């Protein structure tokens, strides 16, 4: 048997699990842990695995090791993993509800909207507290998503293609405004904003870890609850209506959820391209699974991708740090092109 069912509460709750997918999630977890261990060990102050273990779980062998691991490397690699999971989930939701295999928060302007809001805050109101960044990013991203939806959905026929093209146009427009803001702003603030815009994870600390974990804890249960609606919605609006779903509300709610996931990730590390696009496809190709389990696999794949990209970017050309965003773009584009060429096979999500 490759499929078995978990059920509880007298059958009120049940979950179909695929053995292959279960195995894969274990493998992905192990990969993630080893990447985290590797990035804790490497850097300009190398540590052995034993020293890392001592620092994390017992008393640190030296003060330097303690500072390096707890202050710099651990929060950074944790943020990379969480952000990857958030982007992956965001992309998976977008792809499911627009029924479009090419949807990605950074391609359709959602990430750019979040970036614009944050850059505007950095440049125009430099005294604003960092705590507001996620909120601003969320508002900006939501505004852009609403704009694209209202433009693209007016004539529903051919909506998916229109959605993507509209998103590309809006993204170019917003990116230009962001650039103009950078020119206008004072050079120090612009410099700070530039590093953030390249999608770099080097400036994060425990504050980001806690805020991102909090948002994971709130949004993921919501997502699990919403997964059943999503699995109906991806059969198409007509079928979903026939099955008794209020399509408009479900779609709006899910898009808001997807935008929220992407926006919080963007507010911490800047717009990381192509993770939301690639992670869901990779998860689907690696193992066959249902909607709920696919979401878990996507989150894990995204986490592995970004953690790996950050690790490579940090160590490959040391002491120069390459923002993870550049690496995810270089790795993501070939996958994207592959998807375009294979579109007919992947159209059915």
């Amino acid at each position: 048997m490759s499929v078995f069912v978990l059920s509880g509460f007298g059958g009120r709750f049940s979950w179909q699990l695929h053995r292959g997918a279960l195995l894969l999630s274990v493998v992905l977890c192990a990969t993630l842990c080893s990447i985290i261990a590797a990035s804790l060990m490497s850097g300009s102050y190398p540590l052995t695995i034993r020293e890392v273990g001592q620092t994390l779980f017992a008393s640190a062998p030296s003060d330097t090791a303690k500072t390096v691991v707890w202050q710099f490397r651990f929060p950074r690699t944790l943020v990379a993993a969480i952000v990857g999971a958030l982007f992956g989930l965001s992309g998976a939701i977008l792809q499911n509800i627009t029924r479009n295999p090419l949807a990605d928060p950074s391609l359709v302007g959602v990430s750019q909207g979040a970036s614009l809001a944050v850059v505007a805050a950095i440049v125009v109101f430099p005294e604003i507290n960092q705590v507001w960044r996620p909120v601003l990013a969320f508002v900006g991203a939501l505004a852009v998503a609403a704009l694209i939806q209202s433009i693209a959905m007016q004539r529903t026929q051919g909506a998916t293609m229109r959605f993507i093209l509209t998103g590309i146009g809006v993204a170019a427009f917003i990116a230009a405004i962001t650039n103009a803001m950078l020119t206008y702003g004072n050079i120090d603030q612009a410099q700070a904003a530039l590093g953030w815009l390249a999608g770099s994870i080097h400036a994060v600390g425990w504050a980001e870890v806690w805020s991102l974990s909090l948002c994971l804890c709130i949004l993921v249960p919501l997502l699990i609850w919403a997964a059943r609606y999503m699995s109906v919605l991806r059969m198409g609006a007509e079928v979903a209506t026939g099955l008794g779903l209020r399509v408009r509300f479900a779609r709006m709610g899910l898009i808001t959820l997807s935008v929220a996931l992407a926006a919080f990730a963007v507010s911490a590390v800047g717009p990381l391209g192509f993770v939301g696009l690639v992670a869901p496809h990779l998860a689907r190709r690696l193992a066959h699974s249902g909607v709920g389990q696919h979401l878990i696999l996507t989150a894990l794949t995204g986490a592995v991708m970004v953690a790996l990209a950050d690790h490579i970017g940090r160590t490959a050309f040391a002491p120069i740090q390459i923002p993870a965003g550049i690496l995810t773009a270089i790795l993501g584009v070939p996958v994207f092109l592959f998807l375009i060429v294979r579109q007919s096979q992947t159209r059915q999500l």
Partner: protein
Amino acid sequence: MTRGAMLSLPVVLAGIALAFAWHIAVGAKTVPLGTVLTALTSYDRTIFDHVVVMDLRLPRAIYAVLVGASLSVAGALMQGITRNPLAEPGILGLLTGASFAVVILVGFFGSVAPVWIPLLAAVGAATTAALVWGIAAAAPGGSTPLTLILSGAAITAFLGAFIALANLLDQESFESLRVWLTGTLSSRAPAVLWWSLPWIAVGLVIALAIARQVTALAMGDETAVGLGVDVARLKALALVSVIALTAASVAIAGPMAFVGLVIPHITRIFVGSDYRLIVPFSAGFGAMYLLLIDIAARMVLAPVEVSTGIISAILGGPFFVWLVRARL
């Protein structure tokens, strides 16, 4: 040529002349239009305003005219050949490809003689064009507007990431290229202009020569063949022209997106769908448009100067969205 077009020709030329004069007049120091005229007719090195006009403002205005005309004609040809209202050197990745080639070689050799820059840009643009078309053609359903634009956007993101990477690894060589990469008309050495001129001339001559056949192609490949057009040869010539024009404008001004998208559509509103008119009028409107955009770039946030490419994208992005809604 229709009578309406004959009549509007002087209007367009007058518009360019006006925009040209205005472009020279505004800036950090406003020069009165009268002084601009005397500086152009009887140049006097001892008068400060004359030096500003001749050494700083005039080259920039000429760049704007040349780049605007080249990009618009390139866009018009691409739209005609691919029968895709959204085709444009920027959106389909040609500008990024050309910049990528220039950036990588400049990074590799430190600096490159100006004679090679248009050539490098042409090689980059041609390679990217082949890549984007190849990918779009390999997709099921062939090269539709959607697949062309998606593969263009993907290639742009890909090469953009490499440009950013090169930029990070070698900050010093790229200091001078950073502004150029957002599309700007300021601070290019005149030598690049001289070496780009032949490319622009060749591109424009080819574009004008094939304009009549491009009109026939608008009715579809089969009809065009029936009308006696050698379609393969026509497309090859158009591609040569597009690449020459794109390469020259990238060499002068960096990647300046959306000019080639907006202008041909505006031109069609005025002169209809005959490419014998679209090509020259696109050149005229494009020159005027870029002059005006460059004026805006210098004026909106004065005394700070915004990159011309940024203004172009702010205007062009919504236009693209409108086209998607109206035409697809």
